């Protein structure tokens, strides 16, 4: 082998300016706010009646690393990794709704994220997920469409919120929704003024202002296995084994108390306590949906904290550049 080809040490390479630290992924790894306590490493023990503890493994979020997007976020929950970017464009409002802008969320599950996806148009799963994300975003009023109007009937912002799955390891809906929320909170739009003479909206680079956001919709998903076990945040290995999956989306009411926004249960969700070897036949077990809703409300605070911290970190980073 040529002498030159022997790898130099990392330090010399850094001195040569060859090796970077990879801002996006390094920060993602550092920011383990949502750490998993040791007791739940074996999350198969999260049975009904004992604990519906949601801290399966860490979730982390990081926003504002993609310069070509108006807002961006990267979310990782265990293996599942989602990148989301917001692109703002200007369009004429709908004739029937002259005072409303547009919010267009889409998720892409490319062939790279899991062997079962093939290249080509969006798979059925991606279509269903996009539709659910759209409904959640529209019904939660997180960004009110009225706040996106530049000039009534003439010009309004269109926010394209595109999420791409880099690694599919289960519970993609939760990760995608969190990524979309973080990216929207990270987004900054230029000042836009409608010019009557030109008949178009003109923008100014400064000042850029963040979007006006309302109560954050946050998800929590569970799976029911073998009619006995409730698993939080199922992985790609577990998902096909579940009898049913439950997704709870919570928002906040005016007194900032958690409130239910949306509940989706797919499949027959019956929990028979007697089948649970740990809880035993004598244990008092609530209905599964009740447990899920309580756990989702309990998780909400932590999740909101992670997102806020990620958004704050993203802002600090942008200022320093």
């Amino acid at each position, binding site marked *: *082998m040529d002498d030159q*080809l022997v*790898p130099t040490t*990392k330090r010399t*390479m*850094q001195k040569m*300016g*060859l*090796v*970077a*630290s*990879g*801002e*996006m*992924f*390094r920060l993602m790894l550092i920011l383990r706010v949502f750490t998993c306590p040791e007791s739940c490493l074996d999350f198969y023990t999260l049975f009904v009646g004992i604990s519906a503890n949601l801290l399966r493994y860490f979730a982390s979020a990081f926003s504002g*690393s*993609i*310069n*070509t*997007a108006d807002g*961006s976020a990267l979310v990782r929950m265990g*293996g599942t*990794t989602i*990148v989301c*970017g*917001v*692109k*703002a*464009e*200007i*369009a*004429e409002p*709908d004739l029937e709704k002259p005072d409303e802008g*547009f919010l267009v*969320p889409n998720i*892409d599950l*490319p*062939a*790279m*994220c899991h*062997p079962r996806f093939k290249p080509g*148009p*969006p798979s059925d799963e991606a*279509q269903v997920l*996009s539709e659910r*994300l759209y409904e959640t975003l529209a019904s939660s009023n997180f960004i009110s469409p009225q706040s996106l109007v530049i000039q009534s009937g003439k010009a309004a912002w*269109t926010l*394209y919120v*595109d999420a*791409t799955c*880099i*690694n599919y*390891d289960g519970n993609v809906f939760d990760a995608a929704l969190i990524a979309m929320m973080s990216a929207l909170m990270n987004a900054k739009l*230029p000042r836009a003024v409608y010019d009557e003479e030109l008949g178009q*909206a*003109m*923008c*100014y*680079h400064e000042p850029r202002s963040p979007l006006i956001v309302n109560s954050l919709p946050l998800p929590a998903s569970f799976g029911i296995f073998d009619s006995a076990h409730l698993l939080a945040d199922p992985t790609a290995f577990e998902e096909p084994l579940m009898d049913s999956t439950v997704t709870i989306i919570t928002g906040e009411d005016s007194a900032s108390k958690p409130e239910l926004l949306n509940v989706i249960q797919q499949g027959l969700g019956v929990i028979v306590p007697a089948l649970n070897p740990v809880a035993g036949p004598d244990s008092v077990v609530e209905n599964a949906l009740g447990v899920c809703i309580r756990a989702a409300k309990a998780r909400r605070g932590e999740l909101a904290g992670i997102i806020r911290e990620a958004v704050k970190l993203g802002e600090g980073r942008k200022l320093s550049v």
Partner: protein
Amino acid sequence: MALSNFDRRRVNGPEESFSPIFASEKSDSNQWKIGQPRSKRGPLDIRPTFLQPGLISQANGSAYIETEQTKIACAIYGPRQPKNIAYSENGRLNVEVKFTPFSCRRRRAPLRDAEDRTIAMAVHQAIVSSVRLELLPKATIDVFITVIEADGIEGVISSASVAVSAALADAGIEILGLVVSCSASVMAKEIWLDPTEDEATASQGTLILSCIPALGTITSVWQNGQIPPGDALNAMEACQNRCTDIHGAVAQALREYSNS
């Protein structure tokens, strides 16, 4: 027009939308003029590279590469059985490139351009001669590349080639050597390595060279624009010298990953 844009498989926005029109140019966007030196780095410097193999747990091999504003993830699936493809004595290497809609300055609406195929072909050319496909009859190796953020096509092709090669090594597929790639642009009398999008636009021509430094062979050269033959040779030499350094960095990243 309106109907052709409608895609029932995605959530659709308004029929037409335009990226914002700015009243003034951004103050910090500096336009390069002939004779000016390169700002921020030397002419033969490349952008610092971050390479992390093994990021995608579902794939057989994967790598993530970041060179400042270029961010690319790459996954390898295979060797696996192809579907509906006739028998072939040699394995096949498929390369698919996908741009995320937010990866460029203008939004890239899905299904509206063919640039990804050009890039896929360039990456395929760079990589294919390093893979020992004769050992994998009847099999395919699928290479999927997702461009998260792009800063110049040249940078995307060279970074993607490096990432694919590292991912192939991570997947344990037999290769003759690591392929590394470097791009150059000709700016008046100077040669600037690893141009950004702005620099490539301002240049007379660009060149991407991929090689296997361990064997001292070149796998692909891709030149665009007007470059005098002498400058082209100089640019290739500069690229090849820099490739040796990149090769060291890639080998180091792979070694660190396999040790951890």
